[in-house]
């Protein structure tokens, strides 16, 4: 029961990123969300440590990551180093 509750909290963290991604219009904001995603992923990994991450949570992470990647491609192009 406790684990379910934790799982919900972790799911909410991931879902929050997904929602904020809808309003993302700049690379600056995208980077903040990407950092949040990294943090969320690490938090989940730390929480489960050696145990496997529940499929539902893993799916949510994969989905948000894919959305982040697609959003990055849609945003104004990053200037090159040249």
């Amino acid at each position, binding site marked *: 029961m406790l684990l379910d509750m934790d799982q919900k909290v972790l799911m909410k963290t991931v879902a929050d990123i997904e929602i904020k991604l809808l309003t993302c219009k700049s*690379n600056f904001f995208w980077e903040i969300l990407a950092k949040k995603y*990294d943090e969320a992923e690490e938090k989940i990994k730390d929480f489960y440590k050696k145990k496997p991450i529940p499929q539902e949570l893993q799916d949510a992470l994969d989905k948000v990551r894919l959305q982040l990647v697609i959003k990055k*491609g*849609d945003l104004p192009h990053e200037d*090159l*180093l040249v």
Partner: protein
Amino acid sequence: MGLIKEITKAITDKAKEEVLLYIKKAVDADAKKKAEAAAPAITEESKPAETPAPAPEKQADTKPEEQDETVLRINDDKAVRLTFTTRADSIVISRDLAGMLQMLSYEEFALYLKLYFFSFSQKKNYGYVGNSLRRSIGLDEMTPKQFGKLINMLGDRGLLEVLQVSDTQSTFTLFVPFDETCMKKVEEKPRPDKKPLPPKKETKPQVQEEIKSEPKLPERMESGGGTPPGRAGMEMDEDQLVKSYRTFISLEIDKAKMRVGRSNFDKIYMEAVKYIDKKYGFKVLSDSEKFKEYLTQYYISAFDIPSYEQWRKTKV
């Protein structure tokens, strides 16, 4: 009877005169009061139009101009190029720096802090000034003109050093108090050449820094000099050659962009993002500097742009 009539007439005439005089006095007194009441208002209104008001207006007009011309310098220490050796958990602002920042206007204050945090995130306190920087620190809504003006203001305050590298490019070095525990000064190599142009001198370490971070280019930069494109006989050192190569890549990418069209280029960009994510991981994608490096490499390979080695051979 006649006498009584005469007396009565004389009294009524006198009474009429008295009443008329009284009414006249009353009317005059009212007019005077009104005039007195209106007089201060008129003088107040007229005053600013005449002498005292124009003076403050003039002052108000001249003050901003004066501020534009002479900005009070609040820091006399030189801004030195630094690299941050460790990524600290907290970003600390020293008491001295905080004291200086208190004196800034809110716009300058905000820009300085944004650049300060940006320096910590990119682990160096210098870089190119431009739209990329403006966007990187989250000032998309600010116009480039405003941004440039604020940068110059910070420069005048002594909190930032701006160097014009070329006609279109300039670099900045943010004043960050040196902390030897987590920072390292960037060594500036003295130029043996006869032409020690200050902007070139300043850009040298940055170019070297970028070379270090780029896996492909730096390994190819180790051997000697060459001649610049289209300028036979003029000697060019390695840094200048790298710079020329960068310009070359930029031009080639622009050409390719025009060749394939905007929508196709957007698709290529999307593919590049996916490819970088797949090959190098999401962390590279979220690291702006690394992403730009890999994106450039992707374009080089996608548009068949000659590698540095190949390009160099054609120039030597």
